[in-house]
């Protein structure tokens, strides 16, 4: 039995009984606060890139980084929910693209009011998420396989539906591209898309940490059989997670239209990998049951900071890709090491 976690605080000897090395103690802390390591990495990388190039810390550049992060950051909220249940969603990018094509075409072609078009886009995202959820629960398909299949299906549907054509922002009602507009917040221009992304994080964080549903999501990801025996309906929780993810992906579609000032069937389907990258760098375990959306936000920002900082340093895009790859491997190795605590 460990004296560290259970000794009553009143016992003055407890501190001296802790014979773990500083490294092990650090591991214990990182284990308890999964968002701590990405927070440290983000601060360090901002400092380093700021020293390498003074333009990096300019308000305009910081604003640009957040805008570059907004779409993947929103996809990553949905991805976090699914990975917390020990699943993975390869279709997030294609769901977003399909939803954005539906919104753009409905609003620009058929004279449907913009708000209604957005609702139809939301329904599209939720329906796609619901399909993933049904495949995972009713057919008991592994999420990796189910969403690998729907990734292709949704990608093809988006291309078929749009006839492969991009809808330009100018041809859409202003509400659809509203997410690309910026408003000044204390000297920095923040886009409304970024604010919507932050709202998604706030809502998801609240739901995960302060509602019974959130506890059930963690319990299901942690140990499905234990959750079942504790009286939790596994399939209900899983379906609700995929539906919620679908709604968030529809939000990402709106943000993407504003950011690109267009809806294109060819841009974004590959963001599934970027969203997984953000989640993993953010300290959420691929084994499920451990992690937070705040870690994911940090993870998405870390990727954004690295890409931006390296390109300001004049390095080729290939080096950004290389750096992100190394980050992922380091993050997953760190997770493996942290998880060795008292297992």
């Amino acid at each position, binding site marked *: 039995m460990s004296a560290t976690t259970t000794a*009553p605080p009143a016992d003055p000897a407890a501190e001296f009984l802790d014979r773990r090395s500083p490294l092990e103690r650090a591991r214990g802390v990182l284990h308890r606060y999964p968002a701590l390591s990405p927070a440290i990495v983000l601060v360090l990388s901002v400092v380093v890139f700021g020293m390498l190039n003074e333009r990096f810390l300019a308000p305009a550049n910081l604003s640009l980084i957040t805008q570059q992060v907004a779409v993947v950051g929103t996809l990553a909220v949905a991805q976090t929910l699914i990975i917390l249940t020990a699943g993975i969603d390869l279709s997030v990018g294609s769901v977003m693209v399909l939803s954005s094509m539906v919104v753009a075409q409905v609003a620009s072609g058929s004279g449907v009011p913009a708000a209604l078009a957005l609702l139809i886009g939301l329904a599209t995202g939720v329906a796609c998420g619901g399909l993933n959820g049904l495949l995972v629960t009713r057919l008991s398909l592994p999420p990796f396989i189910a969403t690998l299949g729907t990734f292709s299906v949704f990608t093809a549907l988006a291309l078929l539906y749009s006839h492969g054509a991009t809808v330009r922002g100018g041809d859409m009602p202003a509400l659809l591209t509203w997410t690309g507009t910026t408003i000044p917040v204390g000297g920095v221009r923040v886009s409304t898309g970024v604010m919507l992304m932050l709202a998604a994080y706030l809502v998801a964080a609240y739901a995960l940490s302060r509602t019974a549903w959130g506890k059930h999501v963690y319990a299901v990801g942690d140990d499905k059989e234990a959750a079942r025996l504790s009286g939790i*309906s596994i399939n209900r929780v899983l379906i609700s997670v995929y539906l919620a993810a679908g709604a968030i992906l529809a939000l990402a579609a709106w943000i993407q239209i504003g950011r690109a000032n267009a809806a294109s069937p060819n841009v974004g389907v590959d963001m599934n990998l970027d969203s997984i990258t953000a989640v993993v760098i953010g300290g959420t375990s691929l084994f499920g049951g451990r992690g937070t959306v705040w870690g994911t936000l940090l993870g998405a920002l870390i990727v954004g900071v690295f890409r931006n900082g390296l390109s300001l340093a004049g390095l080729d895009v290939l080096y950004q890709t290389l750096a992100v790859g190394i980050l992922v491997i380091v993050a997953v190795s760190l997770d493996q090491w942290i998880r060795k605590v008292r297992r």
Partner: protein
Amino acid sequence: MTTAETSVNGTPSPVATPVLRARGLVKTYGHVVGLDGVDLELYPGEVLAIIGDNGAGKSTLIKCLTGAEIPDQGEILLDGERVHFKRPQDARAAGIETVYQTLAVAPSLDIASNLYLGREVRRPGLLGSVLRLTDRAGMRKAARRHLTDLGISTLQDVTVPVESLSGGQRQAVAVARAAAFGSKVVVLDEPTAALGVRESGQVLELVRTLRDKGVPVIIISHNMPHVFEIADRIHVQRLGRRAATITPRSHTMTEAVALMTGAAEA
């Protein structure tokens, strides 16, 4: 099937309706026969121990009784009424709380969240009904009280994740959960297997407390001294069937073991 139960029935009111009764339960896993027509009666206010060798079907039996498994055949009666538990939450809703052998705790959640897993308490008013906000402080306070009631003084910090606890402490959490919410029947599958001498004593004490409150208890254990100390009656499970029902007065430990292993017939 043996009729030993009627011949050597123990003291607790044999004429009363059993709180929980199983008749002819059959459960197979592919070719493996887990239960082969088991009967069981649990009478009001008694402690019923289930003993048997590894693989005798003890855990399968209580899983069928508590909705964790659905029996292929047979019937279960609660207070004389036929019940069909399809999920563990059905049995829970009927007041049956269970500590499964695998403990069924969520390792990454803290102690309080585990105690209230699947029955979270929401804040009153709009915060709870609209915003679904859980009453975290209230649940933590109550969790601390449940643990204190159990005499588990080493678990005062209920915000610690369960995975950082020792095996025995995890078991204590699972037992505390069952004891706190079991209003009709409490079922414990080897609750003292990982516990030290003092902690085992506390669990046995808790079983007595539950019985004195009028809550009957089913307890599975391999520890014969514990069984003979606490049980009013003992259900001997062997090869997926009930070999006998005995009492600590009708049989010695050696005789009980002989029934368990098949060295003796009831």
